């Protein structure tokens, strides 16, 4: 096995295990930390896929901003205590796990299909901030501007929701 393959297996293994631990840990603080680990592994995988800009954004925005927001809310609400973390039991667990297995079976069936033919060789500078920005501002300018409206709406919504009294 070459180095690249070994790197993939180690990173993917850590990503999968940390994803499972995120869902199964009872303490939400531990869940957040495992999720951050998962996002770091994804950033490494993005690097192997020539998505350098997205790898940086993944760490800055996801592992940085969003997960700190989660951690902040958990600390603010003081949710670290375990006795308030009773989980689902009995039938609900069986139903949930079987739904998950059905979804996994469907995805596995999709994987047996043949992948589309690979594209031509990667263009120079594929995935760098320069190429990415040129593409974003030339061909996807309207969606980009709409995203700013969406973020503004989210901002106003959060301020309204987080106010003490709704009038």
């Amino acid at each position, binding site marked *: 096995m070459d180095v690249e393959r070994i790197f993939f297996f180690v990173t993917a293994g850590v990503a999968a295990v940390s*994803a499972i631990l995120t869902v199964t840990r009872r303490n939400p603080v531990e869940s957040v930390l495992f999720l951050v680990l998962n996002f770091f592994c994804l950033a490494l995988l993005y690097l192997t896929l020539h998505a350098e800009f997205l790898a940086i*954004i993944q760490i800055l925005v*996801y592992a940085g901003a*969003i997960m700190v927001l989660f951690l902040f*809310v958990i600390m603010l609400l003081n949710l670290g205590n375990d006795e308030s973390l009773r989980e689902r039991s009995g039938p*609900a667990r069986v139903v949930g796990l079987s739904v998950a297995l059905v979804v996994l079976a469907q995805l596995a069936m999709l994987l047996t299909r043949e992948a589309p033919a*690979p594209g031509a060789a990667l263009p120079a500078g594929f995935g760098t901030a320069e190429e990415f920005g040129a593409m*974003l501002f030339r061909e996807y300018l309207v969606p980009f501007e709409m*995203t700013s409206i969406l973020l503004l709406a989210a901002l106003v919504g959060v301020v309204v*929701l987080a106010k003490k009294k709704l009038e």
Partner: protein
Amino acid sequence: MPPGTPLEYYLILSAVMFVTGAAGVILRRNAIVIFMSIELMLNSVNLTLVAYAHHLADHAGQILVFFVMAIAAAEAAIGLAIVIALFRNKQTVQVDEINVMKW
């Protein structure tokens, strides 16, 4: 496509992460952990998009990931604001104790 790890490996990892997140949404009762499971599912889809962008040598997948991240940031902010508002009124984040919209 340069030699390296085949596309299928990335897709399998993505499928495993997606199913883990889906199971988390169904099984967990803590609203914040449910939000984290949703983030996990979004990220697994992002991995698929980046893998295909590389496979097809097409930037469109990466642009889509960029927009998914923007939506996820908005979703996380709104969701956590809702959780805070709920906690202020109900003193709980367990979703099965929050049933004011159920009946």
